[in-house]
């Protein structure tokens, strides 16, 4: 890590960078830094992968019993098997 101060400054913009919403100048500066900084490149790659893994996670299905008890609590039992 050659330039620790610079790496620290860039950390706050990494989230926007992986979302593709980092504005032009900062984005350019970051990409230039990444070409010469192995550590930051690893951080960016693994951060992007981390976010992807969570975003693509299969949602846990709501158990049928939970759904039934919800409708019962709302006194909507008559709508149980509609919709």
């Amino acid at each position, binding site marked *: 890590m050659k330039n620790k101060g610079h790496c620290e400054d860039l950390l706050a913009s990494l989230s926007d960078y992986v979302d593709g919403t980092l504005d032009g100048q900062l984005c350019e500066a970051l990409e230039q830094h990444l070409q010469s900084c192995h550590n930051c490149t690893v951080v960016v*790659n*693994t951060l992007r992968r981390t976010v992807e893994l969570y975003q693509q996670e299969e949602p846990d299905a709501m158990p049928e019993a939970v759904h039934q008890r919800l409708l019962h609590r709302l006194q909507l039992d008559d709508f149980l098997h509609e919709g």
Partner: protein
Amino acid sequence: MNEAPLSLEALRAGDRAEFARMVAQYSPQVYRLGLKITADEQDAEDVLQETFVRAMKALPGFEGRSSLATWLFRIATNEALMVLRRKKPQVTLVEETGDADEEEGVPHPQQIVDWCCLPEAEMLSSETKAEMDRAAAGLSPALRSVFVLRDLQGLSVRETAEVLGVAEAVVKTRLVRARLKLREALSAYFGERMQKVSADEE
């Protein structure tokens, strides 16, 4: 599915069938939100029920300034944070300032290991999923609620800010902290897995 858009007018007038359609449409997302913020199935069910009970009572006065989804998520997030607070009274609500995480600054990366090349099967295993849940449950409530709304529920930064009643800049700061912390946790876990995979190959 429920093709026709929900009628706000019918919902406000207390139409039961329309309310049932709203429940069918949003209950899976509300349940997941509660589950991810509280990390407990019983708490998630309580959050789910309280959210719709409250919504039913509050609908006649709902002005529609935010979307129905945003409004429901706001009720659900507040419920979930209240549940956490009841369990751990020292936990501060997300609206309050002075959360320890705010003072800390952005965490400096410790784990520098490139695990992106691990086989897909490794990333999608049930063990990995359990580790991901553990890592998310380890975030403070303030960071976790931002992360759950943005990355798990797929809301935009603006929508997340609206649900939580905080500025977009606050959402962005919490989001980068949350994501970097999760990256740390997953890097530690996958780093070990990589050593194991290469040891198995020998």
